[in-house]
């Protein structure tokens, strides 16, 4: 009996071993090859060594721009192909952390968010391209972006495109409240509070200016406009400057707006504010009756490209809103309802707002620096810069801002970008953003906390992070 039992066990053991062997060979082995063709292959290495990889963040660079880069690159580098991969913004840092130090898998040319640039340039992730600086545009390049790509006077990343934030407003609602477009920041601050109090359409939870409480990227405009800043370099070390009197002044103005003019949640970040300025569901009822409206803000502050999301939906023959190939509802700008202006400063110039946009550079570990440089030349060529402008993206080279056009969006974009500022070029800036401290700081101000006290508290939290 016992002997028999043991025998069974041995058999199962052996059968198992055989099964594993078979499995590793057959089961686990083959599908990999199948999937290889289906899934595609990342990274620069492999595929013969005649492929250059470009990582673009998000979908801002449109298809025609990508096609242009590919065909030009392949024209200039015979026998080479350009592979463009899109990395979602939210995954970019994780992917850069792992792939960029890895010579075998690094992308050759990489787009990074402008505020992420210092973190990576400071650790040597990018190739020194100071020798190309003049050739790629030199001092015509947007200087605030050049600075965040610079370490010890050497250029590692250069501006790719810029966006800027300006105000979108409901012309009709402002008129109904008897208000005009303000010329100074003080006027603006008063106007949005007045708007909210008058609430001409008696909308529930109406915001004169809809500004998310934790939305510090828009909120810092008030800091910058009052001469304040988030951090500065003192004797080589970075210091958080939330307690600076000018910063405090801006934050207090912001607090009044948050409390009296904005009904946005205090923990709201960049939550698509354009939802609240559209009449979204006016077209929604089938019997064409308008039961309610989602319009709940007379003014929002948003990056320039938001204008594609603002307007009245274009209704197709089937009674449904038409959509673009990405499935986004196509909206038609209606000048009777909507308008734009740059946030004014108190000195007659537009207020310095936070410039969105990104930088681009060559990975230090790239195995094909020559070809990568050739791609950089194409990106900074006159044609491509003009194409960027044509697509509504602020071109890196200021000589080509005209390509943005002459409409009101181009005007507001250029006006606001003229004076725009970036977050500090501190090595640890990405850590500051990742820590969520700024969201909390601005959110707590929106909640009505004591500004000076909060500023002191968060200075202490942020200063150590800034050093990287």
């Amino acid at each position, binding site marked *: 009996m016992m002997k028999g039992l043991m025998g069974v066990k041995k058999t199962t*053991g052996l059968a198992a071993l055989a099964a594993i062997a078979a499995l590793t060979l057959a089961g686990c082995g083959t599908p990999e090859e199948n999937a290889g063709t289906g899934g595609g292959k990342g990274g620069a290495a492999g595929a013969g060594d005649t492929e250059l990889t470009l990582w673009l963040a998000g979908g801002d660079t449109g298809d025609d721009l990508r096609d242009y880069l590919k065909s030009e690159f392949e024209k200039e580098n015979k026998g080479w192909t350009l592979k463009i991969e899109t990395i979602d913004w939210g995954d970019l840092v994780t992917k850069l952390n792992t792939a960029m130090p890895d010579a075998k898998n690094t992308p050759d040319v990489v787009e990074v968010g402008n505020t992420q640039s210092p973190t990576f340039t400071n650790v040597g992730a990018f190739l020194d391209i100071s020798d190309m600086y003049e050739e790629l545009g030199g001092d015509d390049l947007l200087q605030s972006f050049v600075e965040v790509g610079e370490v010890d006077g050497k250029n590692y990343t250069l501006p790719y495109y810029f966006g800027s934030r300006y105000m979108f407003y409901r012309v009709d609602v402002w008129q109904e409240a008897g208000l005009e477009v303000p010329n100074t920041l003080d006027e603006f601050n008063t106007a949005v509070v007045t708007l909210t109090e008058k609430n001409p359409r008696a909308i529930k939870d109406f915001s004169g200016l809809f500004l998310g409480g934790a939305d510090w990227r828009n909120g810092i405009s008030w800091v910058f406009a009052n001469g304040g800043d988030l951090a500065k370099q003192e004797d080589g070390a970075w210091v958080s400057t939330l307690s600076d009197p000018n910063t405090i002044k801006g934050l207090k103005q912001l607090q009044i707006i948050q409390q009296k003019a904005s009904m946005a949640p*205090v923990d709201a970040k960049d939550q698509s504010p354009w939802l609240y300025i559209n009449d979204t569901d006016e077209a929604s009822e089938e019997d064409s009756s308008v039961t309610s409206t989602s319009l709940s803000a007379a003014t929002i502050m948003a990056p320039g490209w938001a204008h594609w999301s603002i307007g009245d939906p274009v209704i197709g023959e089937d009674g449904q809103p038409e959509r673009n190939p990405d499935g986004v509802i196509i909206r038609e700008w209606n000048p009777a309802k909507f308008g734009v202006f740059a946030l004014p400063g108190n000195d007659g110039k537009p207020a310095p707002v936070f410039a969105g946009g990104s930088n681009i550079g060559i990975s230090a570990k790239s195995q094909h620096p020559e070809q990568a440089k050739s791609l950089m030349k194409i990106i900074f060529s006159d044609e491509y810069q003009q194409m960027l402008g044509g697509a509504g993206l602020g071109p890196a080279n200021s000589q080509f801002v005209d390509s943005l056009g002459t409409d009101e969006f181009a005007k507001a974009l250029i006006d606001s970008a003229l004076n725009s500022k970036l977050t500090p070029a501190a090595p640890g800036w990405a850590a500051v953003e990742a820590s969520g401290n700024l969201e909390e700081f601005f959110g707590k101000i929106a909640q009505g906390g004591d500004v000076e006290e909060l500023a002191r508290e968060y200075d202490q939290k942020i200063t150590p992070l800034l050093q990287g």
Partner: protein
Amino acid sequence: MKTKTPARDAGRVDAGRVGAGRGPGRGGPGRRGFAWTPYVLIAPAVAILALALAYPVGWQLVTSFKEFGLAQQFGQPAEFNGLDNYIKIVTTGETWMVVVRSVVFCLVNAFLTVAIGTGLATLMNTIAKPIRLTLQICLLLAWAMPVVAVMTVWNWLFDWNHGTINWFAIQLGADQYWHHNWLEKPLSFYAVATIIIVWMSVPFVAFSVYAGLTQVSGEVLEAAQIDGANGWQRFTRIVVPLIRPVLMIVLLLQIIWDLRVFTQIRMLQDRGSFPSQTDLLGTYIYREGVGANHFGMAAAMSVFVLIITIIAAWPYVRSLMKQEAI
């Protein structure tokens, strides 16, 4: 579903064996020669665990004693800094707040899940088959939802602007829920998180406990009833002790899983709340370590959390071992 499957019979037999206190195994020491079969059998599992985990876990342990940031990731030499990372963790007040919050959150969630799961299992045991099947299928569907999809739906249900929950509340006459932001206040945030996590975890517990219940013989219960025990007494005095091994293991697993909950909290934080007020261990490690590129710190925190988990679970594991449930 067949009512009598071979598996269930097999389960009965097993319950009998465990109940009779007969431990596993009849091979082992004392046999002639070296019994290599069990080692061959665990070899593939050990191999895959070693292959996939040995290096990362070892790396994590070593890195936890280093100053390791983004610069080191990009090739600069990483220097050992002894216990600095650990000292920093232990001396940061926030860490302990997060630990306390996580433990409380984990216990509340684990016990709620097991309580509700057990309740549902008991309910399943008393209702007619078609209704039981309906309930089981609904639970299965909920269980089958991918977590990203789950979070998307729940985030939307609780959305302050278009959320269905607010709409319901208003329909019921609670007008203050117009544009109510569920995520702003930490307690309310945790309540939402608890609802989601319990919702996701209950099906597993309910099925496991139901399995245990089907093995409780009806005759014993009837006998107890004849002896005058009421429903609650029968449940606490007869059913619970019989399904105790199941309950304990399910509870242990829930505690382990809920203590390291990450995705749900992270995706809720993406929508709202102030992270420093709502962080649990998983998101705290991620934010302070990985997010800030302080990888040495993140590694030390992971080790710290592992130690806390083991300490917390140890007495429990020991009692499980004593009962031969392990």
